[in-house]
């Protein structure tokens, strides 16, 4: 096996499995950035999306002012291309982490991008829930907190579905994080592969990313199907 790789994919072999620049570290870095950005951005996005629906006109906590603010903030961050967001958020990243380089620094812009993306997805999922179900809960004397629980439990399968979509687009964005020294598989593909004409490296990195993405998709679909009782 090792001989085969050495013969046909010489540059892939040269990078090696372990070590600072190895394939293992690159994969770990990609997953590290993806998971943290998803946890942070996803949580903020979930709350923002939820409150967008609650404060929307006709919503349970209708509030034009808060709705407009949340809506505009989300729109702005959603509109900025990620590669630009990486650079304009640099001062914020520096303020929070005292550095602008490395995978941890990349988590800040990744989280912001995820928050905006996920907020919209959550908003769509929750606002498409049957308004009648919420009304029935209200009619039975539900508190606002009860209603939030209804929103989240009724939306759960779809929230998982959009989490899958978000995670997949996030993996794509981590590849760009290489631009600020974020590392990861995307960085390997560009720095070690494309830029040095090592096409075997580029293709191997691409395959690895595809593998991660398909795994996420598979897991997401499985979970959605398992949890949906529609």
């Amino acid at each position: 096996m090792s001989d085969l790789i050495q013969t046909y994919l010489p540059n892939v072999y040269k990078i090696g499995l372990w070590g600072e620049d190895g394939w293992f570290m690159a994969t770990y870095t990609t997953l590290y950035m993806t998971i943290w950005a998803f946890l942070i951005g996803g949580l903020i996005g979930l709350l923002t999306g939820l409150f967008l629906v609650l404060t929307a006109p006709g919503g349970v906590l209708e509030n034009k002012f808060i709705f407009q603010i949340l809506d505009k903030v989300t729109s702005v961050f959603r509109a900025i291309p990620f590669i630009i967001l990486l650079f304009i958020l640099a001062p914020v990243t520096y303020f929070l982490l005292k550095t602008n380089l490395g995978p941890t620094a990349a988590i800040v812009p990744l989280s912001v991008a995820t928050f905006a993306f996920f907020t919209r997805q959550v908003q769509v999922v929750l606002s498409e829930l049957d308004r009648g179900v919420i009304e029935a809960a209200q009619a039975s004397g539900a508190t606002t907190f009860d209603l939030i629980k209804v929103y989240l439990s009724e939306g759960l399968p779809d929230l998982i579905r959009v989490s899958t979509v978000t995670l997949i687009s996030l993996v794509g964005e981590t590849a760009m994080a290489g631009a600020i020294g974020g590392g990861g598989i995307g960085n390997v593909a560009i720095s070690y592969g494309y830029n040095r004409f090592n096409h075997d490296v580029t293709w191997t990195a691409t395959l690895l990313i595809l593998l991660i993405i398909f795994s996420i998709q598979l897991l997401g679909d499985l979970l959605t199907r398992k949890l949906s009782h529609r």
Partner: protein
Amino acid sequence: MSETIIQLDHIDITFHQKKKVIEAVKDVSVSINKGDIYGIVGYSGAGKSTLVRVINLLQIPTAGTITIGGQVTFANQEVQLSPAELRQKRQKIGMIFQHFNLMAQKTARQNVAFALRHSDLSKIERAKKVEELLDLVGLSDRADNYPAQLSGGQKQRVAIARALANDPEILISDESTSALDPKTTKQILALLQELNRKLGLTVVMITHEMQIVKDICNRVAVMQNGALIEEGSVLEIFSHPKQALTQEFIRTATGIDEALVKIEKQDIVEDLASNALLVQLKYAGHATDEPILNEIYKRFEVTANILYGNIEILDNTPVGELVVVLSGQLDALEAAQQAILEAGVALTVLKRGA
């Protein structure tokens, strides 16, 4: 007299939509007694749903006064209850919907239990109550099914069990049978009637089907363009409808329109003899006891050929409708018509022989 449980006084509901003002409900006053099955009929957009939602304040009116069970819940353009009091009040007003509105991610049992989460019952008592409720609606064996695994009628039963969880005094039914087939509709209506009798539940039901009103209601209100145009006991409304819309609704319920179309195609009606009249007779109550058609034959030798007949028992009172061809001498025909009217039967001439 029986006790008033729902009192709506001069309710106005106005919506503002992009500079457009929509008056959904206009100066409606309704008084519903404890134990009533009160029907509210009207076409879509008449304001029925909007109006009943003020009972549990899912809809806040623009003006008017609402009194529920002797407690003023809305007056002077303000809700008179604290949020906690409002939630408690809502627990005592069950509501069921056209599309059931069950939580798809929860089983029948969990859906019913959801309504009990703020009750004072212990966990064990709650579980027991849920079982009792599911038993009451005849769904004990489907407790662990999700709504998607239930038929429309079964879903509505779960919804009824949920609505009854906190032992409400009032049940609001918003087109609760409109999405069901005729057989299931009958079963659900029978269940509502049984609950009304067994638990003394006051039922307010919105429908666009007069047939339903006829089957189970004791009082009815007719709404048109946000206004209440006619109100009364089912017997009054069915035997003496005043408004054109009410008459229209009643005709669809009795099926007389369809019958008339068929009758008009019959030879005897198409070639109506010159000494004959096609008339429609309507009577209610005691008038049905007297053999009026028999009498006009004896007195005026006017024969009556019955082409269509329909008798309903509304509130223990028979209400009938006949379409007959009267034949006889011209003056005898006049006298017979007079005699029919004097007997308290409404008569409409549909066609004169030529």
